């Protein structure tokens, strides 16, 4: 009974919103340049964040799965901190580090990359709040690979690189993939951190904001009728992408 309540609590609002607008309204909304550039920006930034997260997070996840060191527990806890802090506060924290007058901001500034109100800013804000999902999932995936498989492979003459790419990665990829899906899903729904760091960003000649902010903006300025269709579009696109990716991950599990 309680289980049913929570299921209804999750599904009813999603389904109610998803079916609240007529297809024509949705189509018209999608054709607005402000809307489609916003959605495109959100998806692209989410993908870039996930890509960077993969490159930087997977080696760390492997390290955490295979090596014990003093303070590992605390370190693992620190990685999960972005999940528990309010995301607007995370945005402020990022601004302190990546703002133009601060160390990293200056460092990247010399390379021609700035973060405040740019695509790069959207990406790091998304990455900060979502990469823990990828790291945790990839770490668990690596942990599930019997370390003796790697040891046997070494004694058979394989270098550490070959062992990683031929044994460990193929056996852990499913966890890494589903972690990536979780990360991407979390990234594209980010609001707070992006709002602080990169509100409107130059993107294909427009200055869109990410979709979750667009929904909030329209609601605040024009009310529910105006925000509704955008919310529906965002929900539908996220859901479809999520379901497709999850099913790919699950299909891999069966074989």
């Amino acid at each position, binding site marked *: 009974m309680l289980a049913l309540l929570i299921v209804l609590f999750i599904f009813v609002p999603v389904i109610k919103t998803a079916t609240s607008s007529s297809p024509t309204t949705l189509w018209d909304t999608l054709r607005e340049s402000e809307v489609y550039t916003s959605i495109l920006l959100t998806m692209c930034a989410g993908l870039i964040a996930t890509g960077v997260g993969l490159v930087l997070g997977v080696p760390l996840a492997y390290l955490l799965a295979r090596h014990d060191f003093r303070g590992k527990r605390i370190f693992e806890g620190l990685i999960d901190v972005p999940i528990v802090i309010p995301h607007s506060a995370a945005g402020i924290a990022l601004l302190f580090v990546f703002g133009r007058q601060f160390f990293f901001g200056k460092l990247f500034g010399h390379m021609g990359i700035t973060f405040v109100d740019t695509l790069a800013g959207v990406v790091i804000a998304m990455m900060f709040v979502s990469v823990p999902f990828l790291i945790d999932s990839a770490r668990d995936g690596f942990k599930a690979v019997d370390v003796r*498989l790697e040891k046997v*492979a070494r*004694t058979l003459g394989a270098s550490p690189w070959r062992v990683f790419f031929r044994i460990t990665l193929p056996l852990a990829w499913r966890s890494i993939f589903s972690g990536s899906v979780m990360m991407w899903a979390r990234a594209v729904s980010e609001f707070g951190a992006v709002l602080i760091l990169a509100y409107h960003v130059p993107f294909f000649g427009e200055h869109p904001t990410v979709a979750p902010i667009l929904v909030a903006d329209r609601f605040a300025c024009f009310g529910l009728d105006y925000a509704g269709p955008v919310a529906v579009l965002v929900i539908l696109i996220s859901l479809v992408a999520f379901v497709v990716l999850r099913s790919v991950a699950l299909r891999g599990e069966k074989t």
Partner: protein
Amino acid sequence: MIAIRGLKVDLGGFLLQDINLSVEPGEYFILLGPTGAGKTVLLEAIAGLHPLLDGSISVDGAEVTRLKPEKRGIGIVYQDQVLFPHMSVEQNIAFGLKSTKCPREEIATRVRRMAELIGITDLLARDPTTLSGGEKQKVALARALVTEPRVLMLDEPLSALDPETKENLQHELAEVHRRLKVTMIHVTHDFEEAIAVGDRVAVINEGRIAQVGTPEDVLRRPNSEFVARFALSRNVFTGQAMEASNGHVTVDIGHVSVEAISQAHGPVHVSLRPEDIFISASPLQSTARNSFQGTITDVGDRGAVVHVTVSVPPEFICLVTRQSFAELELRKGVEVWITFKASAVHVF
């Protein structure tokens, strides 16, 4: 040949130390010890999978201490479940050859030849997750052997198998050893397995080597109480060696004195294997020096044999066949005589 000198490995709280061993070329060497004695760690250290705190390892006269595992030519076969699950049996066996950049045609030939030798040709296309325990172990064996390692190390290769498969594979291992003449180091906690397959045995306990010798040495001439008990010498006593004459010594083990062949003097241990004690209903007419009357206090059925505990006191554990057990009508409370030769008593 493998020579290990003063090897020391720290495994965060567990120390493997003072390991000195030499394994002859083509020898079937056993590392025997209880669970947690450090046997697997020692194997992995030899293979280069654990950093050494101290000591050196050389194979065929060349030092390999600082060599990476993939350069040592030392193969490993684990207990079970360690085939690469995302590859077919054939790909599993070919993995090592592919890693060493062997030409493709040669890989195919060598994989096939090894599969024939081990008798798994019909398994080559199979998915390893569908194999039985014995089949998996044969594939693991083929996978290690196909790279022609200088040393093959087996970590409890038979422990996860049912008795029949275990016996078959044991023969298979002996056969492979005979045909390929590869040096083998076989880890086990099973004393009988060690006796059955090994040329020589090293008993290892709490990270140190307790004794090295032939199976006969470990069986008949244990050098410590631990080895004696681990080798299933169920009768181990502490005692005092008294006067010795003509190589014979009398050892007071409390309540009774036993005669043994030894030159020992002072506080000693005495061990006596249960199968070396005869049980009879009346005193036995024989040349055996030791004969005592006692009462049966316990009977343990072990299938083919029966363990009978006779309190003289002290208590002696004797092993009788099921047939003698029935003929002598042995049961708790019955008075019997136990008899054993002085040469059956080992003093250390």
